[in-house]
């Protein structure tokens, strides 16, 4: 299996796909103004090749903030792409599509991965998708795109999730999630007074969420939305921690970038030694895959901002390049199996 990455800062798709021949699966990362055009154009260049796309930044060793980026998989894989619509209310209405795709692909946890780009209502979408993938234990990696549109097989969809099932015929696939935060103190909260539609977190252990956050971190109301870079919340799910970013203050509550539910158990996180954690992830991947073909990753916009602010982003991409072919996109939220997370990196590694 090989991975191709092409880009054009000017938004020239022809330039971006230069050198790409006989792709077996394509991912398009465009901009708000050119998305529809790029989708059609891509379909014209590579008719019938399974593809999904969204609006967002892409990267290999550099980040393409605007323009267009293309990531394609070649040789030794098979793929199928499709879409679930009306994701804000009933993605389950279209679940049969996915069930059939899973059945057709005949993949397994070892060799198949699902990659998805979503327009929103991510937690609900992932719950729904997971019900179809669970039968074969297929892992998922993906993220939220910008502009409320995604594409699948040359068509643009609003309020939808575009997905692709990719099967590696020459080896294994494995997904990873990287968390550069760790628990701060022994704070442990039970969420209540939540509003899942508006991602509102009302109370923590029965106390107003804003007050609790401020009391612990001694920050002003204005500082809360930027403090999330250093101190987001973590939602516990067994031994796993799903990061939840704070968007803004809503009265005495906090609005987040992810749905919070009553009875969710939350902890407070603090930024760790991200350079060391990145090295650790790379070491783990190298240990798991002495011979790997490609790494496709989704990095959170918050991480991109944080790393850029710390002048680490370029170094980070160079470090990831050590693994071999590495490319990905900057998401507004990351998907890892049935979990929707913020401020994380998720990736799939192909042997």
């Amino acid at each position, binding site marked *: 299996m090989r991975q191709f990455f092409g880009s054009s800062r000017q938004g020239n798709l022809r330039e971006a796909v230069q050198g790409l021949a006989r792709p077996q699966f394509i991912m398009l990362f465009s901009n708000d103004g050119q998305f529809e055009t790029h989708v059609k154009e891509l379909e014209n260049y590579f008719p019938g090749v399974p593809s999904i796309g969204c609006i967002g930044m892409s990267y290999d060793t550099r980040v393409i903030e605007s323009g267009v980026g293309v990531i394609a998989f070649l040789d030794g894989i098979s793929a199928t792409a499709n879409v679930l619509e009306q994701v804000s209310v*009933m993605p389950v209405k279209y679940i049969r599509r996915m069930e059939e795709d899973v059945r057709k692909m005949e993949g397994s946890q070892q060799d198949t991965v699902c990659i998805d780009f979503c327009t929103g209502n991510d*937690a609900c979408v992932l*719950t729904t998708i997971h019900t179809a993938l669970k039968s074969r234990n297929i892992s998922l990696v993906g993220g939220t795109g910008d502009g409320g549109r995604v594409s699948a097989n040359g068509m643009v969809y609003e309020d939808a999730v575009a997905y692709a099932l990719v099967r590696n015929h020459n080896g294994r696939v494995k997904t990873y999630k990287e968390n550069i935060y760790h628990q701060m103190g022994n704070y442990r909260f039970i969420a209540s007074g939540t509003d899942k539609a508006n991602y509102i977190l009302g109370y923590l252990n029965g106390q107003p969420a804003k007050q609790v956050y401020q009391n612990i971190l001694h920050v002003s109301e204005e500082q809360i939305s930027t403090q999330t870079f250093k101190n987001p919340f973590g939602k516990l*799910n*067994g031994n796993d921690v799903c990061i939840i970013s704070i968007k803004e203050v809503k009265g005495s509550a906090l609005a987040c970038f992810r*749905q919070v*539910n*009553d*009875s969710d*158990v939350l902890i407070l996180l603090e930024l760790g030694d991200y350079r060391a954690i990145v090295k650790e992830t790379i070491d783990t991947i190298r240990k798991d895959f002495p011979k790997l073909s490609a790494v496709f990753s989704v990095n959170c916009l918050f991480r991109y901002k944080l790393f850029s602010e710390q002048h680490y982003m370029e170094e980070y991409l160079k470090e990831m390049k050590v693994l071999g072919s590495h490319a990905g996109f900057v998401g507004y939220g990351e998907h890892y199996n049935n979990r929707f997370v913020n401020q994380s990196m998720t990736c799939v590694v192909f042997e």
Partner: protein
Amino acid sequence: MLFQKKNRKNKKEAPRKEKGLYPVLYVINVLKNYQKELVQKEVESLRELGLVGSSFNSVLGEADNFQQKLEDFEETFANITDVSGQFENVKEGITDSVLQAQKEIEWLKTNSQQVEGCFDQMENTFEDLKGSVEKIRQCMSSIVSIADQTNILAINASIEAARAGEKGKGFAVVATEVKKLADEIKFLAKDVDQGVYAVESGTNELNASIHTSRQALSHNMEMVDETRVMFDSITQAADGAIQVQTEISHVIDDSRRALHILRGFFDQIRTQYQGVVKHIRNASHLGTTKSTMFEDVDNLLSQIPPVIREEEG
């Protein structure tokens, strides 16, 4: 009026035939309400579980403190054993010192006995001296008696010399000289007698001093004996202290064994506490996975009403 009511009763309307998927929607709503209640109960359960966890962590903390205290006790016992072990050293020190002192006393006693022997010899010597002085006195008395007789003889000679006249003049001179000699002998004898008296008197004083010294020596000997008894008592007392130390060691050993049992008991309790904390953590972990499942259930249930509404058109 009654008739009208009767008529009205007879006009029963036939039950409406329900169409569509309203019952499904109804059930979904009810299920969602149940789910909400379930989630609320879960919030309370998790809160309670959290409190139980906190309490148990406190209990565990207290148990740790108690364990620490027990360890401190063990250390204290070890210190007591060390300190009581020093009894042995002290006792050995006392025994050594007592033996040394007893040797010195023995030496003192031997010396005193030698001094006593010397006093005996001196007493004999004084007796001999006394006898000799007495003999001197007797001799001096004989000399004075002889001098007296010589004096009488000299006087008689002088008388006879006077009777002889001229012829006796020379003899009278001799007689006078003999008388003078006898007088001088008497005078000298008197001096000797005085000297003998002085010697006798000094000898008596010396004898009295020796007697006093002997009495003192005898008293010292008694004191030495008493001191030896006292040292024996000290040695016995030191041995007694060792016995006390041995008893203390036994008590400490017993206490240590009891402490060991107590610690073992608390180790078991601690293990059980940790087991409880582990179970609480597990329950808490399960709680966190449950909240994710609640989210999944909610996410799926919330899709059914729109699907039905769309189907019903």
